[in-house]
Every structure is written in C-alpha cells, then in structure tokens.
C-alpha cells in the first residue's frame, strides 16, 4: 500500500511538476499566444486616478501579430501602452535575461514568478516580474520598473470558457509620482495658481474590460496605418 | 402798480425760490406768477439766474428753498402729471445728431408716453419749416434749424405751457422774426401760456404782455409790459411845498392822466422828456414852490445799467 501511494505521488509529481526553467516557461507562453493571429474586441476603459477624471469610455481594439495595435474610439480614451499590448512576444522582443524566482498565487491561481531583465541599453524597462500560469500558459500579472515612467503593474484575468489566451479584464496600476505629468513650464504656472495640488505625479489604476472577441478572422493592414 | 391779466388762473406760481451752488446763490428768494394766456417775459442779464430758474421749473435742478406750483399743483409731488402739460426748450436745444429730425421727434414722443402719430410729427415740422428736411440727420442742421426743431419738439404733445429759454439765441434777424411770429401765433391762435426767457429787452417787448426782470437771482421789476416799457416816458418826481394846492391845480387837466402816484409832498408823473419843463412852469406860475424835479430812469436805462454793471 505504501508503495502504491509512493508510486502514485511520484507519478503525480512528475506529471504535474511545474517547470522552473524560465526560458521554457516563457517559450510556452509565447507559443500559446501564437495561436492568436489577430483579434478585434470591444473594450470598456475606466480610469481611477486621483488627478484624472475621465468618464468610462468604450473603444474597439484591433490586434494583429506580431505587434500591430489600433484603437478606435468615438470619445476620448486614455489607455496604458504597456497594458494594451500584453502579447508575450512583444514583452519579450528584446534580448533579456530571465530567471525563475519562486511560486506565487494570483487570485488563488498558482503561478511561477519569473524575473526578466532586458539586456538592451536603450530599453526603457529596468526590470520586469512576470507571474505565469503554467496551466494555461498565460501571464496573470506583470510588474515592471521603467527608467522614465515609474513602475506599473498589470493584472490579467481570463475567462475559462475562452479557448484563446485572451483576457476578459485587465487592471493596470501605475505609479508615476516622480514624473511631471505636464511639462515644467505649465506645471509651474499651475502650482503657483493653485498653491496646492500639482499635476506633477500620477498614481492610480486603469481597468479595461474586454468583450465580443473576434479572433483570427483576418484584419487588413490598412486599419493599422496611421491616418493623417 | 396796474397789472393787466388775461385770466386769474395761475399757471406758474413761484414763491421764495432759491438755489445755492456751493458759495454762489444763483437764485435768491424769487417770487413770480404767470397767468393763463400770458406771454410772460423773464428778463435778465447773463448770469442773472434765468436758466437756473427755468431748470428748477422743469425739475432739472432741485431748489434749495421755496415752492413751485404749476397748474395749481406742487411740482415736487406731481412732476410727471405737470410735465405732460409742458413743452420746453432749455438753452441750446440738443438732439441725437446721428438720427434724423423725424426720428428724434418720434423718440421724444415715445419717451413722453404719448402715441404721437406721424401726421402730428410732420405737422410740427411743417409749422417750424423743417418738413422738407425730416429725413436729414440732425448733425447736418444749422444752429437755427436746431432751434426750430427744438420748438417743434416742445409743441409735439400739445402742451398748455411752453417754456422757452432764449429761443432766438444765435439766430439771424429773419430767424428771430420767425420765432417771434410763432410765439404770437401760439399765444393768440392756440391760447398757449408762454414763459419766455431772454436777455434782449426788445424781443420781450414785442411779444410779452407781462414780464419780470431779475438780476443776481432776485426779481427787480415785475409788471405789465405796456406799463413798464413805455419807453418814451420818464418817471419824474416833483417835490412841492404845497401839495394840496398842487393837486387842485392839476385836477381836471390832462396832467392828471400822467400822474402816477403821490407820496407825501411828492407828485410822481410819467412824462415825455419835453413835458417836464411845461409842468414845472405851471407850478412856478401858480406860486407853487418846486424844491426838486427828479427824473427816475426808464426801464430800458435801468436794464442797461444792470447789464453794464455785470459786464464791468
């Protein structure tokens, strides 16, 4: 009996053993996402930032591999750049060095924490930490520190019914408190005028909800051309 | 003094009227009465207080003291009701130069609250000889034309009392005559009461039946024009020793008609200059001692003496 239990345990461990090889983990994620050639989705954007009051906006997002993105919106929309393109290939397009840190849980789901350090000098990102769900091979959380734009955190949640590795919601959390939101000369005037708050520094969250995905139906390149 | 009045209804009643401008007392205890149908001459040299008085009559200026009654009612308490019955020109008439003569009249009529018809406006313009220029802008008008337009607006709403402050100022002799003729017409044909202010004695003499002369804000002389302006007669005072004898002597003679008044032992006559010596001779031949013959200056001389004093 003991032998059976031991054997069973070993079998389960081998079968469900999660990889600790960071390159492999990342490769699996990239591979999973490569099943998405293109997609169109409706997005709802809600901004929760102290110094920004933006109404909830609706927009349409177009994506085509490897990194083409286009947003259409009737009204004003403020969308985090990093959160918009969560394709792993885009995140990892430059040379990098990765190492496995530990296991962690995100929303109760076990993930592997992988640190990614870009090796390119001109990369704006200093360090990224990825929480990767190895069961679905999707990124559930990203934490990045940038040279010029402070730090940001992206939390992605996925609908289990969606066969593609596309999130149904994303929370983009950022801290730009050391960055002047408005260029200095304007900033000085505003500071002097109000004597209190300034537009220097931006901390908050942006919530994006995705719906009505149309995946791999083909999108013309002309959509992504910048209209002048 | 005899006063000839056409009516005993007082249209203007001024009692002890005064106006103080800082240190200057422009009008000082002025009293006068204007009766219905009068053409009342308000005479005085420049700076006498004529315009100030007129402005008080029209409530442009508030009196410092005294009362003004118009049509038997207090001006202070019945201003609007009274002004409905008054048409006036105060000094040089000014209009909205960028508007036509017709438009000015129309607007002034509307402000008065009256429904002045186009016909009425044209009638008034025709009366003053401006009907052919009704479409012209007032800024193109000469001084005389503005004066006539001023008269037209004063008559627009058929007032009972017309107040004219130096209406012939700046006009040529022809213009002056036209204004005078109009005043006479308004008085005789339209039975209007006219209050005419002027510093020209001759002008007043021709149209007014009653008048007052003011100087330094108060009345100097008031009365009937024909009495005051008998320009060929002098007031001569004969001071005699036997007054009863003198009275008997001139009784039933033509000299009696020239006797103005008796004060103590003085007989005051209104005489032609040439008659003085005859009367003196009569007294002397009848052994009445004449201790003094004092000719009083005529009204014209009096008025001129006032103006000379002012100009000096």
């Amino acid at each position, binding site marked *: 009996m003991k032998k059976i239990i031991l054997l069973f345990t070993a079998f389960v461990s081998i079968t469900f053993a999660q990889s600790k090889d960071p390159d492999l983990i990342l490769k699996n994620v990239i591979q999973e996402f490569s099943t998405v050639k293109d997609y169109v989705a409706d997005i709802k954007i809600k901004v929760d930032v*102290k*110094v*920004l*009051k*933006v*109404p909830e906006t609706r927009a349409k997002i177009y994506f085509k591999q490897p990194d083409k993105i286009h947003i*259409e*919106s*009737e*009204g*004003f*929309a*403020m*969308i*985090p*750049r*990093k959160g918009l393109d969560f394709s792993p290939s885009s995140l990892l397009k430059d040379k990098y060095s990765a190492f496995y840190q530990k296991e962690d849980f995100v929303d109760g789901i076990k993930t592997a924490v992988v640190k990614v350090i870009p090796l390119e000098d001109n990369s704006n990102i200093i360090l990224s930490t990825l929480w990767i769900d190895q069961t679905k091979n999707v990124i559930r959380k990203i934490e990045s520190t940038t040279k*010029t*734009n*402070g730090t940001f955190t992206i939390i992605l949640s996925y609908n289990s019914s969606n066969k593609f590795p596309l999130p149904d919601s994303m929370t983009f959390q*950022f801290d*730009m408190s050391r*960055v*002047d*939101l*408005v*260029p200095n000369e*304007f900033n000085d005037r*505003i500071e*002097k005028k*109000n004597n*209190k*708050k300034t*537009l220097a520094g*931006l901390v908050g969250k942006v919530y994006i909800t995705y719906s009505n995905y149309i995946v791999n139906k083909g999108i013309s390149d002309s959509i992504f051309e910048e209209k002048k | 003094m005899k006063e000839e009045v056409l009516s005993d209804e007082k249209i203007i009643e001024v009692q002890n009227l005064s106006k103080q401008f800082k240190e200057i007392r422009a009008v000082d205890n002025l009293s006068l009465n204007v009766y219905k149908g009068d053409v009342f001459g308000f005479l005085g040299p420049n700076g006498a207080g004529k315009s100030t008085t007129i*402005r008080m009559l*029209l*409530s*442009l*200026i508030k009196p410092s003291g005294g009362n003004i009654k118009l049509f038997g009612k207090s001006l202070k308490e019945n*201003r*609007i*009701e*009274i*002004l409905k019955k008054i048409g*006036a020109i*105060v*000094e040089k*008439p*000014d*209009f*909205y130069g*960028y508007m036509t003569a017709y438009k000015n009249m129309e*607007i*002034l009529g*509307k*402000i*008065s*609250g009256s429904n002045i018809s186009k016909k009425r406006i044209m009638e008034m313009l025709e009366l003053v000889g401006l009907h052919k220029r009704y479409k012209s802008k007032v800024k193109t008008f000469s001084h005389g034309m503005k004066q006539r337009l001023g008269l037209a*607006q004063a008559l627009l709403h058929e007032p009972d009392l017309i107040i004219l402050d130096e209406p012939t100022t700046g006009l040529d002799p022809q213009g002056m005559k036209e204004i005078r003729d109009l005043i006479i017409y308004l008085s005789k044909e339209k039975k209007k009461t006219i209050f005419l202010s002027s510093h020209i004695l001759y002008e007043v003499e021709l149209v007014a039946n009653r008048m007052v002369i003011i100087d330094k804000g108060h009345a100097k002389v008031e009365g009937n024009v024909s009495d005051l302006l008998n320009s060929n007669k002098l007031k001569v005072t004969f001071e005699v020793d036997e007054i009863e004898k003198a009275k008997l002597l001139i009784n039933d003679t033509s000299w009696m008609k020239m006797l103005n008044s008796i004060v103590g032992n003085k007989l005051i006559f209104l005489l032609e200059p040439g008659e003085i010596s005859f009367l003196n001779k009569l007294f002397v031949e009848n052994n009445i001692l004449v201790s003094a013959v004092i000719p009083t200056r005529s009204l014209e001389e009096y008025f001129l003496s006032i103006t000379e004093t002012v100009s000096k």
Partner: protein
Amino acid sequence: MIGLINIELYKIFRKWRTYIGFIAIAVLVSVIQVAMLVEGQRSINFMTHNLQQSFILVGNLLNGYLVSHLILNTLVIHIPFLITLVAGDLLAGEATSGTYRMLITRPVSRISIVTSKFLAGIIYTCMIIFFLAIFSLGLGLSIFGSGDLLVVQNGTIIVFSKNDVLWRFLLAYCFSSLGMGVVASLAFLFSSLVENAIGPIISTMAIIIIFIIISGINIEIFRAIKPYLFTNYMNGWRLFFDDPIDIKEIVKDSLILLGHIFLFFGSAALIFQKKDILS
C-alpha cells in the same frame, strides 16, 4: 418700461462704438481659431507629452469645445473693455451730447429713465456674451468638430464626454453674463457721476485691472482682501467645468455678483435721482 428700453437699445445700436465689441470678438475668436488650427495639435502634444509616454490618448482632443474653452478663459481680459465702451456712455453720453435736458423734461420719472438705460446696458452685455458663445462654439465646432473636452481644474485633468459638454458651456456663458453684468453696472455707476464717457471707461478698467493684480499676488494682506474683490468671482463660470459641480459655490458666487450689480445700480439710480442737470 419696455418702450423705454427699446428706445435705449435703438440708441445703443445706432452708435458705431457698439459694433466695436462685436467686431473685436469676431476678430479675436477667428485669430485664436486659426492659431489653434495651425499650432493647436502641437501644443496639445507638448502638453500631454509625458502622459503619452505611458498612455495612448485616443479621440479628438483638439475640438471645437477645447478651443471655445480656451477662448472663454480670455474672457476677463478683453470683454470688460468692450462692455465699458457702451455702459460708460449710457448716462455720460447724454450729458456730452446735451440731450439730458430733452430727456429729463419728458413726463417720465427719472427712475424709469435710469432703469431703462441700465437694463438696455445689461441686454447689450448679454448680447455680447451670446455673440461670443455662438461665434466661438459655432466656428470652433465647424472647424475642429466635436469631441470630448479636456480641462484642468484645481490640479486635476477632467475629461468630459462630448454629450456632457454643451450644457456646461451654456451655463458658463450665462454665468459670464452675470460677471460682465457687474462690469457694466460699475461703468454705469461711474457714468452717472460725470459728463464724459472716457472717465467711466478708464475708471472701470483701472479697477478691474487693479483687483486682478491684487488677487494674483500671493501675499498675506492681499489674500485677506481677495474675497472682497468682485473680480475674484467673475471666473466662477469655471465651476461648471468641474466634476462634481460645486452648486453651493456657484450659488454663492452668483449671489455675490448679483449683490454687486444691485449695489452699483442702486447707487447710480440714487445719484441720478438727486442729480442737478447742469449740462
């Protein structure tokens, strides 16, 4: 009263100086619109440059509403002068032209005369603001189109959805009329004191400029004075571009401005009632 007001409006619009205001607004608005057409996008990009490092900004920010909002911000500088040109002449102009005598000897009360003139001045003020609104919004929307409005209010960037903007502008312009009404009332008061329109125009503008300067200098004594200066409340139209709208503050500002209007008009009426007409 309506008849008198009509007459006063007729007189106002028969003078060439009245049209200076409308022409000046048309020229200024056009110049600003053209400048924004040429340089506007660059300015917005510059202003949002740092923000654009981390965010994609989608939508037509350079739209008619943004430009109109910018123009409204210049309100306090040029509009008061255009208002005083007319309001300062309402009473003093009659003295200059000598028409006081003709006017006041009409069988109409002085209070009716002064009220009708004042109301005509207020109507003119509202017409100027209305013209600014129509020209600014009309031209702006036709050149730049519609879109969401981005404003900076008390250190916060607020974006209003385009369906949520027009009513704010309408109320802001209404409030501006109130603010400019104070300017007109002050000029009117000065006009009742003198016999030449130059004095009221210069005095009113001098007071506005001095008050604005005092309000802008950040020292203790001026901060204490500031709440008592009416210019402090003239920019209350900005409260309509806040989220949420501070209704209490708007009501307070409106009442203060209305109070100033009544005070200035009341004083002018009293002066006019007692005034000796010597011109």
